[in-house]
């Protein structure tokens, strides 16, 4: 599991991904962790297949009991199917996840961890020395969906928005935006169902001060590439499976 520190000041952002031991048949995913003093938040911790490499990678940077909070942007298996294993590794932790998915996510196995349902309008996660904002991203792509915004580090963990289908050898950061759009186009057109939801999200996210936009698949956007992405996404028509079938 490759680990990249994407922000490092009073608190740190770690990105985990590009796992060379990952079975080829499963989609590559990025997992993120914020370490803020004695507390750590693990975001979209991934599927069962990446649990062991993830846990191993985390223990190089944080103690197991330091990971007090988990976040799941939505209910998909590549996001949170490892929950049953985290439940045994971190029994005292809290899982922040969309309220509408609680009954579904619990199917992954959760006997110890506490489920904290995020309301539709969003919420915050207080890590003591750092407060994170949970930004609604409903229908992008799941019907209950959130992103994590760090106003101090100016980092937006954007879930499936900004995602690209990437090889394990792919670079961590977007280096040529125009070239990168070819890896994102189909993903967004097919997985994002609603132009209305897309535009609503863009208008709210444009008001945030973002230096890094970190998606759950593919590469991280830095600086001006964040605005380039928002402009590109605004122009893109999504929900094309319906349009193509009519």
């Amino acid at each position, binding site marked *: 599991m490759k680990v990249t520190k994407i922000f490092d000041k009073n608190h740190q952002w770690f990105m985990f991904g590009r796992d060379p031991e990952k079975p080829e048949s499963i989609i590559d995913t990025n997992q993120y962790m914020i370490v803020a003093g004695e507390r750590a938040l693990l975001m979209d911790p991934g599927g069962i297949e990446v*649990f*062991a490499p993830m*846990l*191993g*990678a985390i*223990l*190089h*940077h*944080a*103690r*197991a*009991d*330091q990971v007090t909070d988990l976040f799941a942007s939505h209910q998909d298996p590549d996001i949170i199917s490892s929950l*049953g*294993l985290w439940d*045994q*590794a*971190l*029994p005292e932790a809290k899982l922040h996840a969309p309220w509408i998915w609680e009954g579904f996510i619990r199917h992954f*196995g959760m006997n110890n961890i506490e489920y904290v349902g995020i309301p539709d309008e969003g919420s915050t996660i207080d890590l003591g020395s750092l407060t994170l904002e949970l930004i609604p991203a409903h229908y992008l792509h799941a019907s209950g969906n959130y992103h994590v915004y760090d106003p101090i580090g100016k980092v937006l963990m954007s879930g499936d928005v900004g995602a690209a289908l990437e090889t394990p050898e792919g670079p961590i950061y977007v280096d040529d935006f125009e070239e990168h759009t070819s890896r994102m186009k189909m993903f967004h057109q097919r997985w994002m169902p609603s132009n209305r939801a897309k535009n609503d999200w863009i208008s709210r996210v444009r008001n945030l001060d973002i230096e890094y936009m970190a998606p759950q698949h593919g590469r991280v956007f830095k600086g001006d590439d964040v605005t380039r992405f928002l402009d590109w996404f605004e122009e893109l028509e999504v929900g094309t499976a319906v349009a193509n079938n009519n």
Partner: protein
Amino acid sequence: MTTLTKNNEDKLVALASIAAELHTVMNVAYGVSLAAKNAKVISAQAGEKGLGFQPITDFIDEISQLAINGVSTINDNALKLSKISVHEQRSYDAYQRFQSVIKKNKDAAYIGSLAPSMVRIENHMIDSFKDFKNSMKDLFVLLEDMDKHMLSARAIASVSRVVTSDTQEFRSKLDVVANDLDDAAIFIKEKVSDSYEHLDHVKNLTRKHA
């Protein structure tokens, strides 16, 4: 595939087989209960002549209720064993993954912080194993009780044939009830015996990884 995983898979199949065997028993037991209620009506219609048959129809009704309740309890126990097996498998799976993390990340600064979780899972697996063994013992007792009830049912079927022979008027109808009871008791005994074999298999698998 690890030995415990394979054992657990075999255990789950064996426990599901017990539930499947006993599902058919439930239908038969309901049939006998209905026949016993019909027999009660027949003996009531027989007036004084049917008086000798009344305790027997009461007993048939009672034994069919015992079979219905017994099968339900046995199924609950088999389900409990299945659930323990699933939990045991999940704990074992986590334990193996934790071991793999420790093996591959010996140089990790915080690898020692995983120790409390490992201990917790070990204790959970020990508790699950004890719980499984106790529940298995309970299930053996329940199956033995059911076997005894069916022996009693066969005995009462024989007695009822003698009694019905004294009540000529209703003999044919009550003979049918006695035969149904005997057939049901034989069928249920067979299914209990099969379930016993499945449970014995579970016991052997449990002993293997004790």
